[in-house]
């Protein structure tokens, strides 16, 4: 391979490092109306009356929109393929507000100051209800969060809305009851993962305008342009064909932008006023008015025999979807389906779940998507089991690990075709120095160092649902344009897909021009989520390039008046495959390309779509060394080793960076990131001053290595990497904490105070 599996710089790198204006707000026209939202101060209330007359008459104000003015089609903001599994439980503005921050009115005007002034003149009277803030008390709570008659769901997802149950379900394979009875050792504990914020640096932002044909154009920072079109059409009650969505460069998403957040507000302003409109969420709004990771409370029961052979696992997840059901049925599924298969050898396993509504901000997609929460629970339980068995935790893993060729019962019966997890564990064990450091080394009176480990898997795309199409065009100077609908959000997919195309078309990388996403021009793609882009869109690129090569050869055959079957293409020229010196039967691609656009030419372009019946899991083993201050509980990660099997890394640098970034987010989640709500349901940490993400001083060394398997279903053997990398830090650090001082922390985040108080409790 020439270009695949090499660390080329990103194709957009120089624009980004020199600060070129490439993001949504950089492109917005200056004459946009400024759109702002009046938000609910109550966690649960009904709007009884609202007076907007004064505000609407104020200077500069273009419109004030309330629940009385919006279409009445309920929809979900979750970016998912139609028919979406998430319930239709939203309106653009509703008469009932369900969390502190739920939008109440949309105000648009010429300047920010004018709009803010007008907002202060809107009076709203509420009938305030008792909010449901504790997910463990949500079920059958007297307050019913979605009493509306038109609540709708496209599938049976086990919901009972009148009980605040958004969805429920599960499965069992084997007889867990019997296997638990046969177990010599059982661990049965409850683990609690809190809501976290994706906290990408570019907050939500969108601008909209009507084009010359009065079609609504939405330029937005999103991971899901095509789903935005679909949701907007439904929510606004206009045909999809009247909507165009454009995605410029985006300042990351981590799943936050797999949900529609800011798009509809300027859109409805533009439809109402005919004028361009723009909304830019400030950081506070970005925290309080979007989606978070689903808080999950997970009970894990694991049983094994004396030798450490796993007999049964039961995982029960209670997930908190907040006020609305975005991604509710799917994230919870991953807490079981992307954890249990690791221990596919267990004789029986069971997974059950309930997802409840509460009056907190809606949860949504965040890197890891439920698997992260499940991994913390199951991997912590496995570490506790090893301790109970008196066994090295890595030995316990190796004894029960899934293997290539196995049918994965808890993974929809999929066959595992590529897996180097065992090699990942071995490599990581060596890199961290497990033999010498496990469980801990006392370095002074007050300080101890300890190691911990965890393993994980994710998927690569949603099988049979995700879909990616691409188009490759040969242009007249013998370069290619690659049209994709997948969204690069900093992850580098434009580069990775260009690498794949360059490899297939045997050209240099700079001969591939990747265009940004525009739903009018780009081929359909479900979007960048579910770890699908490299794997799925990458495969579509392979297919399209193969087709285009065929077309190039056929076109050359016509020119050369030769049977194309005898011709070959090496990226630069088409020639007689049997007779290399046959100059008569040789044409440079450049000449061919130029000739094709003259007169009776025939422009060459190939499209291909791809969807996958399987979702091959990438794997990772994470190892941590911490230093703990036994007097204050302060715990610092001094070394983190992540060994990843993502199949063939198409671009090893970008894969490494994904891993490093994911690990650091995981460390933040493990040690301090925590969305908390006050007694009235107000989010307490709604700024970077209160919600701390890791700074570069909060980390020690991060080391990444690859142990690549070869995935036959992926392009050049690749699987995904974007999500799997966030899963191991929480359980690995929890494990190291146990090894440092003998306590078990089963609730995140594991702050210094929680650690110290637990140590004291134990003493």
């Amino acid at each position: 391979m020439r270009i695949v599996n090499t660390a080329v710089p990103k194709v957009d790198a120089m624009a980004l490092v020199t600060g070129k204006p490439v993001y949504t707000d950089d492109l917005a026209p200056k004459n946009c109306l400024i759109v702002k939202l009046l938000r609910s101060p109550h966690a649960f209330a009904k709007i009884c009356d609202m007076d907007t007359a004064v505000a609407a008459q104020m200077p500069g104000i273009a419109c004030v929109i309330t629940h009385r003015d919006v279409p009445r089609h309920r929809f979900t903001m979750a970016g998912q393929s139609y028919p979406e599994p998430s319930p239709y439980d939203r309106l653009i503005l509703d008469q009932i507000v369900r969390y502190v921050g739920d939008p109440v009115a949309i105000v648009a005007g010429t300047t920010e100051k004018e709009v803010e002034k007008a907002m202060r003149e809107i009076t709203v009277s509420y009938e305030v209800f008792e909010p449901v803030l504790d997910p463990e008390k949500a079920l059958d709570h007297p307050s019913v969060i979605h009493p509306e008659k038109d609540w709708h769901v496209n599938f049976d997802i086990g919901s009972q809305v009148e009980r605040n149950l958004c969805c429920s379900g599960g499965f069992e394979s084997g007889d867990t009851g019997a296997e638990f009875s046969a177990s010599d050792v059982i661990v049965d504990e409850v683990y609690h993962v809190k809501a976290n914020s994706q906290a990408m640096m570019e907050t939500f932002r969108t601008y909209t305008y009507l084009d010359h044909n009065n079609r609504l154009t939405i330029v937005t920072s999103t991971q899901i342009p095509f789903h935005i079109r679909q949701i907007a059409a439904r929510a606004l009650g206009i045909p999809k064909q009247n909507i165009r969505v454009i995605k410029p460069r985006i300042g990351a998403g981590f799943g936050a932008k797999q949900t529609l957040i800011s798009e509809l507000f300027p859109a409805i302003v533009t439809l109402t006023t005919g004028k361009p409109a723009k909304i830019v969420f400030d950081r506070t709004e970005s925290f309080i008015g979007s989606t978070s990771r689903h808080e999950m409370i997970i009970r894990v029961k694991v049983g094994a025999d004396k030798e450490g052979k796993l007999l049964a696992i039961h995982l029960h997840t209670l997930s908190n979807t907040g006020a609305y059901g975005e991604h509710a049925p799917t994230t919870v599924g991953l807490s079981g389906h992307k954890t249990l298969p690791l221990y596919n050898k267990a004789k029986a396993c069971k997974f059950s779940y309930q997802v409840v509504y509460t009056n907190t901000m809606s949860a949504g997609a965040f890197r890891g998507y439920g698997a992260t929460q499940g991994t913390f629970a199951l991997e912590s339980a496995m570490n506790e089991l090893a301790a109970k068995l008196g066994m090295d935790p890595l030995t316990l893993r190796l004894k029960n690990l899934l293997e290539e060729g196995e049918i994965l019962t808890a993974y929809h019966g999929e066959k595992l075709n590529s897996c180097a997890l065992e090699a990942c564990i071995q490599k990581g064990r060596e890199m961290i120095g497990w033999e010498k450091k496990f469980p801990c080394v006392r370095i002074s009176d007050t300080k101890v160092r300890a190691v911990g480990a965890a393993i994980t898997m994710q998927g690569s795309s949603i099988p049979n649902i995700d879909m990616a199409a691409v188009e490759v065009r040969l242009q007249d100077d013998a370069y290619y344009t690659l049209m994709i609908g997948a969204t690069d959000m900093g992850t580098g997919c434009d580069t990775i897909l260009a690498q794949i195309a360059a490899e297939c078309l045997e050209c240099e990388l700079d001969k591939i021009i990747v265009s940004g996403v525009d739903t009018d021009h780009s081929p359909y793609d479900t979007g960048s989520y579910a770890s699908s882009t490299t794997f799925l869109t990458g495969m579509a690129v392979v297919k399209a390039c193969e087709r285009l090569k065929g077309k190039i050869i056929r076109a050359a055959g016509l020119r050369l008046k030769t049977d194309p079957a005898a011709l070959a293409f090496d990226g630069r020229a088409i020639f007689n495959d049997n007779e290399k010196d046959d100059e008569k039967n040789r044409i440079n691609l450049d000449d061919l390309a130029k000739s094709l656009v003259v007169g009776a030419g025939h422009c060459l372009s190939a499209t291909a779509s791809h969807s996958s019946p399987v979702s091959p899991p990438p794997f990772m083993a994470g190892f941590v060394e911490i230093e703990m201050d036994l007097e204050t509980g302060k715990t610092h990660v001094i070394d983190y080793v992540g060994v990843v099997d993502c199949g063939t890394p198409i671009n090893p640098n970008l894969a490494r960076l994904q891993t490093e970034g994911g690990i650091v987010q995981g460390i933040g989640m493990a040690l301090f990131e925590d969305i908390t709500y006050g007694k009235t349901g107000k989010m307490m940490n709604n700024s970077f001053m209160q919600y701390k993400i890791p700074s570069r001083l909060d980390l020690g060394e991060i080391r990444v290595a690859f142990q690549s398997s070869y995935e036959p279903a992926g392009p050049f053997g690749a699987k995904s990497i974007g999500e799997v990398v966030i899963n191991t830090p929480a359980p690995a650090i929890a494990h190291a904490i146990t090894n440092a001082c003998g306590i078990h922390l089963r609730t995140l985040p594991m702050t210094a105070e929680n650690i110290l108080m637990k140590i004291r409790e134990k003493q």
Partner: protein
Amino acid sequence: MQISCDINGKAYTRHIEPDLVLIDFLRDLGFLSLKQGCDTTNCGLCTVWVDGTPRLSCAMLAAGIQGRQITTIEGVEKEAAAFGQFLAAQGADQCGFCSPGFIMNVLAMERELTDPSDDQIKHYLAGNLCRCTGYAGQMRAITLYLGARKGELSCE
């Protein structure tokens, strides 16, 4: 009110509102590299130089720059690109939204500190948050870049 200042070597005189924030002033003039990541003055995305010193443009009034020299990344494009190549070689420019502020502070650090240790580098750049990279790749890029400036290494 009226202010005069120098931005990237060019003189500007403008009428402004007294409470206009510097970042808004600069973006409005077309210096769109400037990004705002927070409302609490602690993400570092909006970093510019004021008389050569790195400052947060989200927490200054345009009124306060009367007679001063402002430098944005547009004004040091060559240097930014030179360091940027090292970032790109590591793949450490992910979404890039933090890059302009980060790079301005790296270049300021290069001017202020001689032969900084890793700890000093981290300390100097602690106010530049990045949610994508996990910082390690940025650190590799900085080390190689500073080495290259001393004639030791290349960006490969």
